[in-house]
């Protein structure tokens, strides 16, 4: 019964969304206040309906109600509670519902907290996402529907994909979704402003929190996804340049570019047309990501929804939204006059360079991802574009960016002093080079180029520190004054420094792990030992175990260093009984930021087993850096300058007082 209520709520949500997507815009155009007010109440109602539908589906999953097809396909009564819960969005229909829920949740937030936005802007800003909220329920209702029933109800489900049964998926898909929806929100601000024909610094200030939030969540999503692939797939790799990874990475790159160009726009009113175009592109890349993941047009580890009708539907949404946004852009762009002029060597110039490199590298990733698809549809030839392509193009293009990053914040607006920035950075550069050499000496090995890579990463970290150092005037001012100046810096300055520092840490991790990593594939029998990263692993033998919905063969290893036992680790091969599906559960031991990664292969006829042992030095820096970037994002987000309508909130009481006095 309740599932039908959920279905009904979703149909009502669709109807609400259609009303919400038309009337407020009409009202804003006509200057009709009640129609504009509809946007607020409509957004809240929409959120209520979608939340109800989502709650109903969740309830069906938690109660293992196998009469619901979606539950039957994706759950099993023996699955632990947390995976029943994540099973709600661990499948195609549920994840679309989650997308929708996040979308309308943000709308509801704007409806509640955006009271101080101008009326017409608020109406438009709430109406634009309603177009998306129209498309998605339609999509969910028309293509296979999560609320459809099975008759007769089967007693048991086939179990969700075992790969999805671990700590990652409960939080992994929602994070990129938050990012995608954030970019949708930003697009709606852009479009709403374009409709009014007013793109100015105020616009840049309104979209900046959304850009930042989208970027922060996407950073988290990508890092989580990468870590999930690393420990779950048992291949020891952390980035595969898989189409789905690229699908979330491209909006991240474009979003990073947007974050920077929006600063220019906010401070200097320049780069308007470019910033709007970038907002549209970033959003398009997010939608493209959804399309690639959902349609199964590309072979990928994530291809779990290969239904052509869905692909075509998303493609239609894609064409409609991107086409519409670009058309509106083309219509309004000539009316946008560009602002401040600047010299090539200046803060603006540095940000333009950032944008140039980021968008060009986004384009190379896009070409590499879509080229096989294009070639196949044109000539029928099947090719694969693998990691070497991306490493060569993307890797080379990133080098100038990494070297330029520390200079950016040290250059002044309008006309910068490159020599001055160099003078301020030579300590950081020298220190980076020295530390990199020490690193290289300690790890003794690898190509000499690694020193430069490590130095680039360290330069980013030290460069970020020196930015704060010089801003506070440490060394020039008295200690007390410098401290007060440091504390008094805007939060966004700390955000910038943290994000750049995080990038440096990630680069450091990537270079270190690719250079110093060792891999051994050995056949081991109980009692044998293997060496990796200065540790000795003794294989003690295999043991069988039974879990709630799987059986496993576990190998036990005792790890020692210099004769003393330091740890022990289990590595196993699992067989999920319901699906007869084997998985590898790698044994991972962490030492500081380095890890020992043990993965089991096939048993041999003579009682031995193939064991793959990796020593992954400093690998945790890769995700640690992403965490620091995220933290930078949040710090920047808390800057009071960025709160929606912060200046007008203060202005209001005055206006109210004036009105009262009249």
């Amino acid at each position, binding site marked *: 019964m309740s599932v039908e209520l959920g279905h009904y709520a979703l149909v009502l949500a669709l109807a609400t969304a259609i009303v919400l997507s038309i009337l407020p815009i009409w009202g804003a155009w006509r200057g009709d206040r009640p129609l504009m007010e509809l946007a607020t109440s409509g957004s809240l109602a929409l959120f209520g309906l979608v939340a109800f539908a989502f709650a109903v589906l969740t309830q069906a999953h938690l109660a293992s109600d196998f009469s619901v097809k979606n539950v039957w396909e994706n759950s099993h009564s023996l699955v632990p509670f947390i995976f029943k819960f994540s099973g709600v969005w661990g499948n195609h229909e549920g994840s679309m519902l989650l997308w929708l829920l996040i979308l309308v949740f943000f709308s509801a937030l704007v409806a509640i907290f955006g009271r101080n936005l101008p009326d017409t802007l608020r109406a438009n800003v709430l109406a634009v996402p309603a177009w998306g909220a129209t498309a998605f329920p339609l999509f969910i209702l028309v293509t296979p529907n999560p609320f459809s029933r099975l008759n007769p109800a089967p007693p048991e489900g086939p179990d969700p994909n075992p790969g999805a049964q671990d700590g990652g998926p409960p939080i992994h898909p929602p994070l990129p979704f938050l990012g995608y929806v954030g970019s949708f929100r930003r697009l709606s601000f852009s479009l709403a402003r374009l409709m009014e024909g007013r793109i100015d610094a105020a616009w840049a200030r309104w979209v900046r929190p959304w850009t930042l939030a989208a970027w922060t969540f996407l950073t988290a999503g990508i890092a989580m996804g990468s870590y999930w692939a690393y420990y779950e797939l048992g291949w020891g790799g952390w980035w595969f340049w898989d189409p789905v990874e690229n699908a979330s990475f491209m909006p991240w790159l474009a979003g990073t570019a947007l974050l920077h160009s929006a600063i220019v726009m906010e401070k200097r009113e320049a780069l308007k047309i470019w910033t709007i175009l970038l907002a549209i592109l970033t959003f398009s890349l997010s939608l493209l990501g959804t399309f690639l993941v959902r349609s199964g047009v590309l072979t990928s580890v994530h291809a779990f929804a290969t239904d052509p009708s869905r692909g075509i539907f998303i493609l239609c949404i894609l064409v409609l939204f991107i086409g519409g946004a670009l058309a509106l852009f083309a219509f309004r762009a000539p009316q946008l006059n560009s602002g401040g002029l600047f010299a090539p060597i200046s803060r603006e110039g540095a940000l333009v360079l950032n944008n140039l490199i980021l968008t060009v590298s986004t384009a190379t990733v896009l070409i590499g991802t879509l080229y096989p698809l294009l070639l196949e549809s044109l000539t029928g030839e099947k090719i694969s574009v693998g990691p070497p392509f991306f490493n060569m193009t993307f890797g080379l293009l990133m080098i100038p960016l990494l070297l330029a990053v520390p200079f950016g914040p040290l250059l002044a607006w309008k006309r910068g002093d490159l020599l001055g920035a160099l003078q301020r950075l030579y300590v950081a550069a020298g220190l980076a080079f020295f530390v990199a050499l020490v690193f290289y000496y300690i790890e003794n090995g690898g190509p000499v180029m690694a020193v430069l890579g490590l130095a680039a990463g360290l330069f980013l970290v030290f460069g970020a520190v020196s930015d704060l150092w010089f801003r506070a005037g440490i060394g020039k001012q008295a200690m007390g004054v410098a401290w007060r100046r440091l504390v008094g810096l805007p939060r966004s300055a700390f955000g910038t420094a943290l994000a750049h520092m995080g990038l440096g840490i990630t680069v450091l991790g990537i270079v270190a792990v690719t250079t110093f990593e060792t891999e051994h594939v050995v*056949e081991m029998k109980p009692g044998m030992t293997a060496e990796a990263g200065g540790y000795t692993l003794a294989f003690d033998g295999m043991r069988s175990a039974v879990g709630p919905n799987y059986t496993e063969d576990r190998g036990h290893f005792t790890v020692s260093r210099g004769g003393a036992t330091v740890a022990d680790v289990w590595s196993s091969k699992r067989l999920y009984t319901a699906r007869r599906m084997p998985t590898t559960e790698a044994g991972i031991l962490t030492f500081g930021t380095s890890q020992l990664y043990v993965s089991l292969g096939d048993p041999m006829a003579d009682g031995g087993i193939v064991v793959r042992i990796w020593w992954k030095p400093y690998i945790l820096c890769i995700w640690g850096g992403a965490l620091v970037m995220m933290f930078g994002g949040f710090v920047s987000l808390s800057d009071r300058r960025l709160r929606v309508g912060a200046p007008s909130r203060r202005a209001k009481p005055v206006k109210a007082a004036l009105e009262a006095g009249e």
Partner: protein
Amino acid sequence: MTRKQKRLAIIGGGMSFILAAALLVMFAFGQSIAYFYMPADLAKTSVPPETRIRLGGLVEKGSVARGEGSTVSFAVTDNENTVKVTYTGILPDLFREGQGVVTEGKFIAGSDVFVADSVLAKHDENYMPKEVADRLKEQGVWEGQEQTQ
């Protein structure tokens, strides 16, 4: 420098960066694209040794043999032609006889054995790598059901 010259310099710089990136992409494509072949294709055309390709098909039943250490040899077939493959390393969990597989590697000069350095078999028990499924359907030897997941 006048303002016009400055602007030209900026645009020129940007353009040359984009040009360099485009050349880089073209060069990288030439270096690192792997074409996809089925065993039947290899009977018709010959691939020069040391060229990276992807070879896909079904793992022939009864062909998997373990050699020294972690070296495995097996045969990839499309029921028309069969190619012997050797691979050193750990096979993916879902590698099974009679199932679809995609291998990447090259032929060594003077030998008709394909030396693979990566073997992909995907997540789902009735999953067939897309390239393999398409071609098997074309050749009419497709036996699996449509993917429903």
